[in-house]
């Protein structure tokens, strides 16, 4: 097929352009549309037959004069040019520069849709990433190659948490073998939680580290916040940014994460870098998908979203991971806002069904001035179990986390009981649960935006608050743990 220009537009609406009599256009082909003002727009073939070809236009179909719209089929899939110079650059959703600098020129370019990773080729993620945030490191541990979204609501500090993770994320390296595991429990005694681990663990974060920032539908101020945050932590040169702002055409959001992840895959699996991908906000992405789906007349499933939303989101999220025999990794932190704080809304719901856990932010905690307002009970990291414990974090980590969850869940029950019958009526033990919950929220969950806690500080802090409860209530900890870490003085 030639790269002739066609002027046979039949109709255009909702980001879709229908073309007549374009023989043999291939599904997925890239299209360039020239409008009557001579401006060009990018598109992609989403349905093709001899009579009608349907093109999705990423810049939208507003102001198209059908008579004066010229469409060129490039006879190639949608590809992104790739070179190490992507780092430090800012692009739009289709991968064109947004920073006024020249486009990336390279002989290497890849189809932005990627191809599925063979499940037999994956390497199971198990390397602990210390984010310095206690609720994550201690209770919902992130590992390299994991996809762990932040579920949030309007006005909640998801961006600040994502930025803090980007700023603080590092690997722990055990440079000295720990004293032999015999006796367990108290291998890394660090007095009163303030101990700083100098020698045994050292952090790694070097040139092989990159960040891909994908913003869909975010405000100018949010975009600026991230840029400043990267700049401030001196990583700007290691960031590839793909931006579609709130006032940019929404259809572009459909291709943006695919473009950004093609770039991330290149950095990770071609250049061997450890890539942290921050994607915000997946809900705006899904809304753009709904818009196009409605335009195509696709059968809606829930809340007007098409039935294939799950598969579509999975194509994006499953690009995170590690590959056997390759050095790099893609760790993904998508931000998903929950419309009306509803976790059962299709976008957070389907995301939760795909990702390897979630960090859930709570409006109540935020209102009670707990920052970051992480609701630990609905939060989860599915890959935590293989990334923690002896040799990776600390021997008692899994049990401490489990005890924190159990005790805090129990404390929540006591709280709702207290709300009904009054705190005075509570038993002595129940009162201690209330104290525990307070301390847990104010000392363990709460921490400064600049406070970068080591995992050992986090675990010591956990013991501090757990020691507010009687020993007998701590059934998920072993006797050995209790002997090594329980702080009688606090228990009083």
């Amino acid at each position, binding site marked *: 097929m030639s790269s002739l220009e066609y002027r046979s537009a039949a109709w255009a609406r909702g980001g879709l352009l229908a073309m007549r009599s374009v*023989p*043999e256009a*291939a*599904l*997925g*082909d890239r299209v360039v549309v020239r409008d009557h003002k001579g401006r060009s727009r990018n598109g992609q073939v*989403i*349905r*093709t*037959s*001899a009579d009608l070809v349907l093109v999705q236009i990423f810049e939208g179909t507003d102001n198209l004069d059908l008579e004066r719209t010229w469409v060129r089929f490039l006879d190639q*899939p949608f590809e992104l040019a790739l070179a190490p110079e992507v780092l430090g650059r800012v692009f739009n959703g289709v991968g064109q520069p947004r920073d006024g600098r020249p486009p990336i020129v390279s002989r290497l370019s890849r189809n932005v*849709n990627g*191809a*599925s*990773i*063979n*499940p*037999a*080729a*994956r*390497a*199971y*993620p198990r390397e602990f990433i210390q984010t310095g945030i206690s609720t994550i490191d201690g209770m919902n541990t992130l590992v390299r190659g994991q996809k762990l979204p932040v579920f949030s609501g309007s006005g909640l500090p998801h961006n600040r948490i994502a930025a803090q993770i980007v700023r603080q994320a590092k690997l722990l390296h055990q440079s000295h073998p720990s004293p032999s595991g015999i006796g367990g429990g108290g291998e890394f005694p660090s007095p009163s939680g303030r101990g700083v681990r100098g020698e045994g663990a050292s952090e790694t974060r070097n040139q092989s580290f990159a960040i891909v920032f994908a913003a869909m539908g975010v405000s100018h101020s949010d975009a600026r916040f991230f840029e400043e945050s990267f700049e401030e932590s001196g990583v700007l040169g290691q960031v590839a940014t793909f931006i579609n702002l709130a006032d940019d055409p929404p259809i572009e959001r459909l291709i943006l994460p695919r473009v950004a992840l093609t770039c991330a895959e290149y950095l990770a699996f071609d250049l061997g870098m450890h890539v942290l991908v921050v994607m915000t906000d997946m809900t705006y992405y899904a809304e753009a998908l709904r818009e196009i789906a409605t335009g195509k007349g696709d*059968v*809606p*499933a*829930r809340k007007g979203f098409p*039935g*294939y939303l*799950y*598969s579509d989101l*999975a*194509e994006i999220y*499953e690009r995170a*991971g590690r*590959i*056997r025999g*390759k050095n790099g990794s893609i760790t993904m932190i998508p931000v998903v806002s929950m419309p009306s704080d509803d976790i*059962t*809304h*299709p976008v957070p*719901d*389907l995301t*939760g069904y*795909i990702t390897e856990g*979630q960090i859930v932010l709570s409006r109540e905690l935020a209102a009670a001035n707990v920052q970051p307002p992480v609701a630990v*009970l*609905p939060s*989860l990291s*599915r*890959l935590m179990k293989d990334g923690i414990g002896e040799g990776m974090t600390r021997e008692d980590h*899994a049990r401490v986390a489990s005890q924190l*969850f159990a005790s805090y*869940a129990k404390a929540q029950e006591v709280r709702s009981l207290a709300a*009904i*019958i009054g705190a005075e*009526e509570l038993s002595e033990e129940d009162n201690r649960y209330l104290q525990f919950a307070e301390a847990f929220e104010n000392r363990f969950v709460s921490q400064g935006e600049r406070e970068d806690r080591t995992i050992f500080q986090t675990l010591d802090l956990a013991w501090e608050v757990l020691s507010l409860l009687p020993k*007998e209530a701590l*059934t998920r900890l072993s006797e050995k743990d209790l002997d090594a870490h329980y702080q009688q003085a606090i228990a009083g």
Partner: protein
Amino acid sequence: MSGQGRILDIQGPIVIAELPNARTGEQVKLGKPGLMGEVIAREGARAIVQVYENTEGLRPGEPATAMGEPLSVELGPGILGGIFDGLQRPLETMLAQTGERIERGLVIPAIDRAKQWPFVPQEELKVGARIAGGAILGTVQENASVVHRILVPPEVAGELIDLAPAGDYTVVDVIGRVRDRQGNIHKLHLSSRWPVRMPRPFNKRDHAVQPLITGQRIMDTFFPLLKGGKGAIPGPFGAGKTVLQQQIARWSDAQIVIYVGCGERGNELTEVLDTFPKLTDPRSGRPLMERTLLVANTSNMPVVAREVSVYVGMTIAEYFRDQGFDVVMVADSTSRWAEALREVAGRLGQMPVEEGYPAYLGSTLAAFYERAGRVESLSGGHGSVTLIGAVSPPGGDFSEPVTSHTKDIIQTFWALSKDLADARHYPSVDWLESFSLFVDTAARWWHGNIGEDWLQLRNKALRLLTEAEELNRIVNLVGVEALSGQQRWTLESARLVREGLLQQSALEAKDSFCSPEKQYLLLSLMIDIYNRGAEMLRLGMPVQELLRLPLLAKARRWKIAYGSDELEGLRQEAREIVPLFDALRAEYASPAAQRHESEGTES
């Protein structure tokens, strides 16, 4: 017979092609990359084809070829221990041949053509014998765990005109020939093919009689499933469906396990591939991977292949059933399969009835689950397929179509609860929402093999849990002080049952698998403690003192303190309960008894 035609229209996974002679169900090869698909409808000369692979790059006008055969799987030695995609292509071989990304249009046989297997013919079988479908020709020791039986394919019958001697053969070597009534000669191989959408035939259905022992207390003790039964695990995201299914795949007393990852995470399959070869079957002591087969169509792989992957898994399961094995198939998640149906239906413009699902959702699910069961095979032997499907209801809402249809079909329902999972009560099986239609049949097995009062104990434990639920409602209104001593003891005992029995960590080495003996022992101990405590209260012991007994905290840890092979320790604990309560009884009963006695002498 194959027909040639050309592509007319491409829309996502649906392609319309001009293929005048194609039949529904027939395989079609499309375009330059040779993508595989299946005819799902015919309209005049046009065939509507669902394509198992990504259709990007296809063009109208490209060729379409009908292949003359429905989608079939290859069945024979060499499939165990492997991982296949939804079309039964071996993923390890694909990895070796084409790298870490899945390429399209690959045609790779499921079983290595060059590999030889040690075939031992059935001794009694003589040339000249009349044989029919399902007859056992001989065996192949596939690995140390499994002796593969080589069967005459169901559709073949007649006179055996030759049978290969013991020796090593590939799956395509001819190992025997049969002449049918019409005089046609059928060549027999170690492997055979079967169309996935057609259930394999058997003589008759048998009653399921034996519980499937999964080593999970909430399943075996509370909501049992039988070998040959149908079960479902519905639950919101993160509630523990996959962990529970992996536990079943690990520990259940099946001989063959088919694990179908249908539209779920790639890393979950990697985890199985990583861990199963290192784990051993608690009964045979052999690596679990030897009895396991994985079918993987992860969420980022094409949707239509997801729909067929469950049929591929089921056909393989039936094949082992026909050899006389007890097979367990877990499918994670059947909702993704149903969604694939929905997507195709939607693109065909079929009328949606509920949440976009087509009207035939319920009947399709029912027909599929119906392929589970215990049967008498064509050769007169017995085998079973137990099917356990995960269900992923949107928003955790069990009234949605897939969950509600499934609930009507299955016999055991393990409902997972978000509240329990959030509180890290695992497995988060909600004891009030779950049910099993098999309790009475299972009881016969438990009574005969483990303990005669099993049913009574189990029902008592469940009753404690339900009573506690009621009592908690009262507590939440007016506080715990409003309860009587007995009621507080009921609450505490229910907690003991919850924490000491129901909660079972998949991650704790000693707790992950719990033998029936250990399950029964723990159950009887918990109920024993309850009964003895209740007696003490009747004797006048204040409930606060009872609640302070260190025994209670200890009892909650028994499950992790003693593994299934350390039951002597647990029995020792049991023996210590008696003197403990005897001492208490002496303390509380004697003054009362004395008082009673003195009253007696006075009168």
